[in-house]
Structures are given as C-alpha cells and as structure tokens.
C-alpha cells in the first residue's frame, strides 16, 4: 500500500485547520481591537 496519500491528507488537513484557526482568531482580534 502506498502510504503517501495518507501522509499528504494528514498534513493537508492539519495545515488547513491551523491556517483557518489562525485566520479566524486574527481577524476577530483585529475587528475587536479596532
């Protein structure tokens, strides 16, 4: 079994989740502190 699709999926999901969380937190902070 080729493991790379699973590795890419795991890393991609973590990257997407982390970027979304950071963007959401940053935008909320900027709006609140304006």
């Amino acid at each position, binding site marked *: 079994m080729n493991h790379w699709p699973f*590795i890419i999926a*795991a890393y991609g999901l973590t990257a997407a989740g*982390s970027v979304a969380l950071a963007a959401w937190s940053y935008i909320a902070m900027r709006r609140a502190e304006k």
Partner: protein
Amino acid sequence: MARSLVDSRADPAYPRPVPSLHALANPARFLAIARPLTPVLFWAGVALILFGGWAGLTQTPPDYLQKDSVRILYIHVPTAWLGMGGWSSIALSSLVFLVWRHPLAMIAARAIAAPGATFAALCLATGSIWGRPTWGTWWQWDGRLTSMLLLFFVYLGFIALVRAEDERAGFGGGGRIAALYGVAGSVLLPIIRYSVIWWNTLHQGQSIGLTKSTIDPAILWPLWFTLSGFTLFFAGIVLMRMRTILARGKAEARLRRRAHHVEVTA
C-alpha cells in the same frame, strides 16, 4: 488613630510588596505583555512547525514496520498534546477563577476552548488517517480513541455553556457554571492517558517520554520541533483570542454605559 501625612511607601526603606497573583493578572498589565508577545509566539511557532514538518517528511528514514506512514507522528502527537494540554489549562484556569474570582482566568479558559477543540478534532482526524494504513481500519471503538472523542465533545459542551452564560448574563458575565464544568471535565485526562494501559487497544502504548523513548532517535528528533512549534503557535492563538475577548468586553461596557446615560437623561 492618627494617620501620617507622609506616605511611608515612598520611603525606599519601606519594604516593597511582592506583586500578588491578582496584580500580575491585571488586564492592563496583561495587554502590555500580550501585545508584543503575540506575534513573537505565533511566528516562532510557525517557523518551528515548518522546519519540523520539512525534516519529518524528507530527513528521516521510514520505520521498519510502519514504513512512511510513521511521518504522521510529527503532526499527530502535537495535536494530541494540545488537545489534552488545552483542557488541562482550561481546568487550571477554571480553578483559579473559582478560588480567586479573577475574571482574566475565565477569559483564558474561554480563549483556550476553540483552539483546544480544533486540535482535539485534528488529533482524531490524523489518527484515523494514520490508522487506515497501519491498523487496516479508520476507526476502532477502543479506550484511547473513544476517550479522545469524548474530550472533543466535552470541549463543545464548554463552548456551548460559555455562550449560554454570555446570553444570560451579558458578554463575559457569569462563568461559574462553565468553570465548574471545566474542572469536572479534567476527569477525562487520566482516562485518556492511561487508556492504553487499562484496556486492550489497537493504539500503541506509551512510547514517548521526557527522559526516554522507545522510538529511534533518528526518527524522533523532528518531533521536538513540531511539538514546541505547535505549542508556541497555540499560545499565540490563545493570546489573540484573549485580546479579542477583552476588547469586546470593553466595547460592550462602553455601550452599556452609553445606554444607561441615555436612560438617565431621557
């Protein structure tokens, strides 16, 4: 009793009081530290994650048994650490809020909830993806996986409770029920930690410790970069969210004062 007109505290000989926990947790002092610290923690975390991720994907050998899928370790372990560490911090902050009644502690607990839930969900997702090539299944209702799923639902319950208390008592109001829930939820942490010992499970046992590890150092070393990177990233996010809550609370208090002024003058 006669009071001295001279403030003895201005005297250099007067012993300076040690700053109390309350003084250090003052929102103004907190913001003075948090504002410059937020980008430092965030970008240092991102740099460490990128380096650790790159090293984990390209600079380490595949495991003799798990082959290349072992590389999921470098993101799965930090997400599990933050999912559990996040709840430990919520429990501690809730306890501080209940004992010392300091609102900043509850603000910290509220700020940790969403990132903690996100990392608990990422831990479950990456674990499931890792399970397919190594165990032959996406999911198993065993002690470790089920208790981690429960922790994710406990996070959702905490977020819902905080929102309900906000609706009932105004933004940032109340917090006592959520704090009690925060402390009570910590009962799950030892269950998750020892689930691989107490029950027969597909999940591997404890393999990484602070002093010794059963994983070969040639495979393990990038983990310390992603682990510290995600921890700093998490701390940066929590500071952003604490600043958001403080700013919203301030804006709401200003609106309330203005509404009260209009009522009085009408």
